[in-house]
Every structure is written in structure tokens, then in C-alpha cells.
């Protein structure tokens, strides 16, 4: 009985084109857009290319130690850190202005001075490297004077410092761009509210003719509802799996979270979405169009608050109204992914998952009480 109901509800859900658009096609399109827009940054962090800098030597002392340092600094993959152009101050400033280089270094009186125009990944690297150089300049220079052949070894330790700094926070992927993809996954799972709404609409005799017919049926109402619920969850399991597969294996985005964990979090999000949809579908007096509008609006707004449009959204909300971050479903979903990625212990992740669980239980109970009625004042 249950399987029979499950099967047909599953079929009816996957055949509903507008629903498939929102839960699968739209997230894939948006994910592709994110990928295209942020693609370069993504590549850089994976595949380092030398940073163009202009260097102006205005020194009476011997600056060869610094020059050697600049050209010998290499990553583990043997890519030079910098692509150095030696030039005059005037030309150097022009290069910087035209964005031909990411930094202008003025070497004067034994010390390098950095000028940058924008902050960014590259600027940070230049800054860090120079700070290290200044800290250890004496060591480097005296070593150089004693035995130039030893210098590469010292440089290696210096550059290692830089690399460690980039990675020492986490064993995951610290790229901020990921926030967008987490919010995207959250959005896709919250679009389950659309299925939830349809489900409520088609269960209620006062909303739809189908609801009337189902209410007249001889199968226990809870069995029917449960079959509906599981069928729509199954649809979401498949569409989440497809979306995550696409992100991980087609776009090759390093989410920092395993496939199965992402899927599990996405499904927990879908449970929340389904319940929200059930509740929206049970609000009396609203037309179907209004309900769908409310539904899409809820999903997009919730994902917006979790950083779908601006990666910094969550931090901004944390500063102004932190409560929202603790109850907004999309934020909970994206934070669960984030904390699995970034933190090496599970404390934050567990807090997140339990909040989601609590929210689901609350929503399931609420939606149950809102959908269970069978006798109405008016049909």
C-alpha cells in the first residue's frame, strides 16, 4: 500500500517540470554562473601563477641580495613567486596604475617598501613575503655575504613560511567563494518547500479536488501523508545527488566536504523545506499562485541571507542581528557545510545539525497540525 502510494507520488513529482526547474535546473544554472564568475580565483588557489611586481632599486648599498631573493623565491611546484620587472619609479607607478603589476616595491636604504592599489589575494602574498624578508633580512644578507650558495636553502624556509600561513588555519578549502556554493546548495534543498506546498494542497479537501478524493479514500490519512512526504524526499535525494555531482565532478569545485556528507546535509535541509512548504500550503485563504510566490520568495530570501548574492552576508548579519543566523534554515545548512569544511573538530557542525534537527521537529509538528484537518467549514 505504502509503496504503491509512494511510487505514484514519486512519478507525479518528477514529472512536474516547474518543480524540477526550481530544485535542479535553476541551481545548476546558478552554480555554473558562479563557477564562470569566480572561476579565475578558484584556479589561482589551485594552480599558482607568478605574481607580477615592479621593483625600483633606489639604493646606494648593494641590493643584489634582495634581487636574488625576489627571483629565487619559489613555490613547492617550483613556480617562481614573482615575475619581477626592474624599472624606474615613474614607470613602476604607471605599471601599477595600469594594473600590469600587482605591487610596486621601492628598495631604499636596505629596506623594501611596498605600494599596492587594491587588497586581494596577490597583494596579501607580496605583503607577507616582504614582511618575512624584512624580519629576516639580516640573516639573509649576512648569509649571502658569507656564502651565496647557501641562500636558496634559507629562501626555502622563508617561502615555506608563506605557504604555511596560507594553509595553517584548516585542512579544508578556505576559499571564501565556497560560501556562494554552500548558499546555493542550501537554496536547492530549501526549494523542497515547493514540493511540500503541492503536497499540502493536494492533501486538503478544501483546497483541491484531488484532496477531496484522497480524503474520501479508505487509507489512513497518515499513511498517505507519509508516502507523499517520503516520495518528495526521495525526489530531493536524487536531485541533490545530481547537483552535488555536478559541482564536485563536472565543475570540479573543491567544496571541502565529501559527497555523502554534502548529500546528507542537503537532505536534512530538504526536510526543513518540505515542512515549511506544508505549512505554507496549509495557510487558509491564499490562492495557489500566492502560495507559490510566498514559497519561492521564502527560499530565495532565506538563501540570500545565507550569502547567495553576497558571500559576506552571514558576517554582516552576525554583527547586526545574530539571531537570524541561528534560525535561518539556509544559513544553518550552509554553516553545517562550512563547519565540516573548515573546523577539524565536529563541535560546530554538531551544534548546527542539532539546531536543524530541532527546527525540523518543530516544523513537522506544526505542519502536521496544520494539514491533518479533514472536516471544513467550507470547501
Amino acid at each position: 500500500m505504502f509503496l504503491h502510494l509512494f511510487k505514484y507520488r514519486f512519478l507525479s513529482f518528477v514529472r512536474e517540470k516547474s518543480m524540477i526547474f526550481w530544485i535542479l535546473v535553476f541551481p545548476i544554472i546558478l552554480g555554473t554562473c558562479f563557477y564562470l564568475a569566480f572561476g579565475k580565483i578558484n584556479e589561482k588557489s589551485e594552480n599558482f601563477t607568478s605574481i607580477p611586481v615592479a621593483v625600483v632599486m633606489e639604493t646606494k648599498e648593494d641590493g643584489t641580495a634582495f634581487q636574488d631573493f625576489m627571483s629565487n623565491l619559489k613555490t613547492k611546484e617550483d613556480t617562481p613567486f614573482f615575475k619581477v620587472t626592474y624599472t624606474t619609479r615613474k614607470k613602476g607607478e604607471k605599471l601599477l596604475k595600469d594594473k600590469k603589476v600587482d605591487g610596486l616595491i621601492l628598495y631604499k636604504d636596505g629596506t623594501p617598501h611596498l605600494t599596492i592599489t587594491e587588497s586581494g589575494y596577490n597583494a596579501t602574498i607580496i605583503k607577507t613575503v616582504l614582511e618575512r624578508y624584512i624580519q629576516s633580512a639580516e640573516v639573509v644578507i649576512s648569509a649571502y655575504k658569507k656564502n651565496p650558495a647557501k641562500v636558496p636553502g634559507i629562501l626555502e624556509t622563508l617561502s615555506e613560511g608563506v605557504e604555511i600561513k596560507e594553509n595553517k588555519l584548516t585542512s579544508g578549502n578556505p576559499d571564501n567563494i565556497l560560501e556562494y556554493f554552500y548558499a546555493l546548495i542550501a537554496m536547492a534543498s530549501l526549494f523542497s518547500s515547493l514540493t511540500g506546498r503541492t503536497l499540502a494542497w493536494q492533501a486538503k479537501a478544501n483546497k483541491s479536488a484531488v484532496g477531496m478524493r484522497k480524503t474520501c479514500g479508505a487509507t489512513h490519512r497518515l499513511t498517505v501523508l507519509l508516502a507523499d512526504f517520503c516520495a518528495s524526499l526521495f525526489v530531493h535525494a536524487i536531485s541533490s545527488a545530481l547537483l552535488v555531482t555536478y559541482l564536485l565532478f563536472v565543475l570540479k569545485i573543491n567544496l571541502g566536504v565529501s559527497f555523502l556528507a554534502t548529500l546528507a546535509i542537503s537532505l536534512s535541509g530538504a526536510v526543513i523545506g518540505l515542512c515549511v512548504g506544508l505549512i505554507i500550503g496549509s495557510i487558509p485563504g491564499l490562492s495557489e499562485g500566492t502560495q507559490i510566490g510566498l514559497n519561492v520568495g521564502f527560499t530565495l530570501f532565506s538563501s540570500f541571507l545565507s550569502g547567495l548574492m553576497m558571500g559576506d552576508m552571514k558576517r554582516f548579519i552576525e554583527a547586526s542581528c545574530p539571531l537570524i543566523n541561528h534560525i535561518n534554515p539556509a544559513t544553518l545548512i550552509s554553516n553545517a557545510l562550512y563547519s565540516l569544511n573548515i573546523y577539524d573538530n565536529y563541535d560546530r557542525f554538531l551544534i548546527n545539525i542539532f539546531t536543524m534537527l530541532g527546527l525540523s521537529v518543530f516544523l513537522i509538528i506544526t505542519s502536521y497540525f496544520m494539514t491533518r484537518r479533514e472536516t471544513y467549514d467550507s470547501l
Partner: protein
Amino acid sequence: MNESIITVENLVKRYKDLIALDHFNLEVKEGEIFGLLGPNGSGKSTTINCILGLLKYDKGDIQVFGQKMKPDSYDLKANIGVIMQNVAVFKELTVYENVDYFCGLYIKDKALRKQYVNEAIDFVSLNDFRKFYPKKLSGGLLRRLNIACGIAHKPSLIFMDEPTVAVDPQSRNSILEGIQRLNKEGATIVYTSHYMEEVEQICTKIAIMDKGKNLAIGTADQLKAMIQNTETVHIETLNLSKEVENKLSGLSHLYKQSYNDRILKLYFNGGDNNLLSTLKILEDNHVRFGRVYSELPTLNDVFLEITGTELRDKEA
């Protein structure tokens, strides 16, 4: 005698200020095809939805199979089939899948269900359309699918709320025959319609209702016998003078006459040669006339006499 399957006593149902059912009474016995006949808005659907336990009502008592219908009366529901006024099918499921889904709400056994579903599709002659989605079906075919979904589980009590709306005459006849067949196989049927011809054709008992009240109950013949009308004569004629009209009013057994839109209608409550005597007067006065016919009383006449308005006028 036959057991009564549905009893409705003093049912009152209000929608805010509107009284949709006003101390409505009804008794349906086993084996009947019970017709609820009334114009739009008379309360037919409201009655059915109250009986099915979908609507709350303000007052009265309803019993189905001798029990009160509650939301969890699944044993009762198992014996009931419903064909709603609005088509109730999933638009993403095919004809076969729809019938199978709804049948599955009643029949657990897979093989039996398959047989029932096939029989239901046969019953409404949708065999060529099994794999069609509802939006590819014409209005009439959709209605037939709606019927199949409601009766596939072979219920012993079937509610049909205007199942033939938008169905062409040919399919309508096959549906009506089908209903009679279901009835012969043992199902009791409650049938609502505002088409009196239909009701007259198949119903073994008829309740005429208007404005939430049950005005009369009986077989078609019993209902017709309740009224004084025995014959209505219709004559198409141009320019009938007042003088001739006055002469006509002297006809014996004539109790009412009207002349509208070139149609003269004369209502008689007895007599054998009413048409001939009428035509004689017209000929004697050199009145030219076209189509002429005489009609035995219909349910419309019953409705007209009881309420003063025509059932037909209110048809959609």
C-alpha cells in the same frame, strides 16, 4: 423492505450568512439510483459533501450505513465511491496511473487491483487512452476518467455530482447506461444533476430541491402525479390577437396560458382532445400557425408548479 443506506434529518448548513441547506431531509435506500435534482446553487454539492463528512454542518443528523460518518471512518469510506463535480486527477499521471493510484487507496491486493483498474477503464471506454496524460484528453474524456477514478474499487455506495457535465450526448448515454449497470450489479447511487431528462431516464427515486430545501420526493411518475398539469400545448404563431387569446381561455381544463416570443403555451389539467379543440379555435379565427406539439408533464413542470420558476432557465 430495502434497508436505508443514508438518512439525513433536519440538516442545516450555513456559509456565513447564506443558508445553503435549510432543514433538509433525505433517505436513500439500498439499490436505488437516487436523483438530487435542482438548479445551480440549490445545495446539491453541499448535501453530498456533508454526507461524506467533508463539510461541517450547523445542525441535523446524518447516518451512512447506519453510522455517523467521521474523518477516520475508514471502514465506511471503503464502501463509498465518489465522483466530484470538479475533475480530481493528477495531471502528471496517465489515465491508467490515475485510476490505479486512487484504486490503491482502497484495494491492497495487487492482482485484484489490476483487474479492477482495467474494468474501470473499460467501463468508461478509455481503453485507447490509457497512456494519455489528462491535459491531452478532451473535456468529455476527462470527465470519464474522473468517473473511472471514483468507481474502480467497486463501492456499494456511489456519489456522483454532475458527472456528465460537458460530456457529448453519445458518451453521456454510455455513462448513463453504465450507471444503470453499476446499479444492477448492486451499487446504490446518489446522482445529482440539473438535467431533468437524465434524472428522469435513470433515477428510481428523485428529490427535487431548491434553495436548500427538499421540495418533493418520489419516482418520476409520482412527482408528475403530484401536480395538476396533464398536458402542455405549444404553438408557434405570429401576431396573436387579444381577442383570440380570450377565446382560448374558454377552453375546458385550461388552467394557464402564456404567449411569449411567438410561442403560445396552453396548460391543461385534464381532458383528452385538448390539442384538437385548440387548433379548431385557431382555424375558426383564421390564425396562421407553424410548429405545433403537445407535451406530457415533465419534471420541469413539477419544478415550475412547486417553485414558480423554471428549472430550465437556470441551466448553465
